[in-house]
């Protein structure tokens, strides 16, 4: 790792973040659970299989179209648990608050957390509050951790994809990232762009009611669809071929991305999942997903291939290109 300071790109979910984890955290904390590098650790305790995860939320601005930092803090952790096939049960919540932060806003954020926890059917059972001096934090940061239970007949991991499997996305991509960005930059569009922030555990439960045979599940948050497809391909020692025209992207998001110079494949989502399932189960899983409000626009976007072990995209005009992981920060167009 180069340099002697932490840079913003170390926190962007990109290769630099992976490097920081691999070179600093893993050597210090290494153990069989952590070393799997999944979004959640799967633990065995007294005959139970538990999923355990944590995440910190520092979104700016804390209120954005379609949600706020509180909703995000609950949904994000619930989703990280759900992606292992777990039923999320209990969360903790830690608040770091900047001196002078309005109580009214805090009340609103807590209200969103309550609502999201109710929808996800989880309880917030432990908490902590710290206040730091003005200027020592930006308004409000929240950390949540969560625990859930995984049924014994479920085996979902990032390494389970097999050649021939179908790749399903639960809906249109890019909504969250563009909603937050447009609020932050004060950009307004003709069609309001709203974050997709939502708890996905009920959707996962629906999918598992069709078949236990789901190979991979992951939510394409930071780094977007492109980055998590690369993670899945690399963990599974396989390639993935997706078709540009099959990937759902709302017109408003397409337009905003064209304007700002972003590629929707790399823009963050907070209420979407990618599932890799055996071809024979794909259409049934897809149909079941479309019955759920968070999977209504689900599509099969491609399939797992044996070679090459890369993520490839068949473009709208019929060409083929590589889709790499997010590298560096997402940067605006300059000319």
């Amino acid at each position: 790792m180069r340099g002697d300071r932490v840079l913003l790109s170390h926190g962007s979910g990109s290769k630099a973040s992976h490097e920081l984890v691999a070179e600093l955290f893993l050597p210090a904390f290494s153990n069989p659970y952590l070393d799997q590098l999944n979004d959640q650790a799967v633990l065995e305790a007294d005959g139970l299989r538990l999923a355990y995860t944590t995440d910190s939320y520092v979104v700016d601005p804390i209120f954005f179209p379609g949600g706020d930092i509180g909703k995000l803090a609950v949904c994000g952790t619930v989703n990280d648990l759900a992606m292992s096939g777990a039923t999320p049960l209990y969360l903790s919540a830690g608040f770091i608050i900047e001196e002078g932060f309005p109580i009214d806003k805090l009340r609103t954020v807590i209200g969103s957390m309550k609502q999201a926890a109710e929808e996800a059917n989880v309880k917030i059972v432990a908490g902590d509050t710290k206040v730091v001096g003005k200027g020592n934090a930006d308004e409000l940061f929240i950390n949540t951790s969560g625990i859930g239970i995984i049924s014994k007949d479920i085996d979902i991991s990032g390494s389970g994809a097999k050649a021939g499997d179908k790749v399903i996305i639960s809906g249109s991509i890019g909504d969250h990232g563009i909603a937050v960005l447009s609020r932050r930059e004060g950009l307004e569009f003709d069609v309001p762009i709203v974050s997709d922030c939502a708890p996905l555990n009920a959707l996962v439960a629906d999918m598992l009611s069709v078949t236990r045979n789901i190979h991979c599940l992951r939510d394409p948050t930071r780094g977007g669809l492109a980055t998590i497809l690369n993670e899945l391909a690399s963990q599974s020692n396989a390639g993935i071929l997706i078709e540009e025209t099959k990937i759902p992207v709302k017109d408003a998001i397409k337009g905003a991305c064209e304007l700002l110079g972003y590629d929707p494949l790399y823009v963050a989502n907070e209420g979407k999942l990618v599932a890799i399932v055996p071809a024979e189960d794909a259409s049934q899983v897809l149909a079941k997903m479309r019955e759920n409000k968070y999977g209504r626009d689900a599509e099969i976007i491609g399939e797992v291939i044996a070679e090459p072990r890369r993520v490839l995209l068949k473009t709208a005009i019929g060409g083929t290109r590589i889709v790499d992981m997010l590298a560096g920060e997402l940067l605006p167009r300059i000319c």
Partner: protein
Amino acid sequence: MKYLDEYRDPELAKKLIASIKATSRREVRLTEVCGTHTVAIFRSGIRGMLPENISLLSGPGCPVCVTPNEDIDTAIAIARQEDTILATFGDMIKVPGSRSSLEIERAEGADIRVVYSSLDALEIARQNPRKKVMLFGIGFETTSPTIASAVLSAESENMDNFFVLVSHKLIPPAMKALLDAEDVRIDGFLCPGHVSAIIGSRPYEFIPEDYGVPCVIVGFEPLDILHSILMAIRQLESGNARVEIGYRRAVRPEGNITALKILEQVFEICDAPWRGLGLIPRSGLRFRKEYGRFDARSAFGVDVSASSEPEGCLCGEILRGAKMPPDCQFYGEACTPDNPIGPCMVSSEGTCAAYFRYGGFV
């Protein structure tokens, strides 16, 4: 999506590819001047669809890539000064200068802010009247008029805390420098659509006239690009080189006269150093005397005489199209978008970054 899907139609793309194959007989090397084209060509997978006798070279049209280290070092030196805010377009943040980068300076406490337009920088200056705000003015004829316009606004508001570090460059002189270089053969130019929307088609006319090389002004959608390649191939096969506009919905022969007037009012043409291409006569902009008080170079008076370029980095050759990214010893190993050595790997529109992200299986 309206006005987008029409330009990405797979059936029309097939027809254009078939026409290109039917028309093209000899081996040709076309240079796409603009970095946005490089990315668009990769993103849509066009290279792999063209017949083998047509190769596309990437040119110097990435503003970040051609900004010499001296200018980056100057920006860094200014950013380090007390009570100063440096406003920059995002891609500049990560470019390594001789010893540091704006990203590292920001982590060490310098007030460096990413802006989307010159007007954002102006707004920062209005809101921080006790601080000096310097905008790092990079880019070609597409961005320079917006910078000139911000300077005019600052003047009309009598602002005394807004400055620009002018590193603006002009495209046609760089194309001439490429044609004059002995190590690169160029059979045709795919000219930048956005730059041409400002300058029009006339500034390219010396290219077919003096060098016999066809020029087509190209839009940015896949069908725009394929259609313009076909236009260039037709010119080459018929032996009738001229400047054609393949992007009529945005470009007029005379350009954008309002923008050109503003540009002319604030800036004058000067010789300018380009990374990789060296000093090119009459290829840059500087403040006219009347606007000299906005010039960051004189206002801050920093000295960066010891600037150096990264040793062994091939960005210069790559910007000329003389070498391809994989020819560089650093490419993909020591130099990646996360740990870039040269600017072509930093900018989202840099040739190396485009190869790294999209290249390979075409």
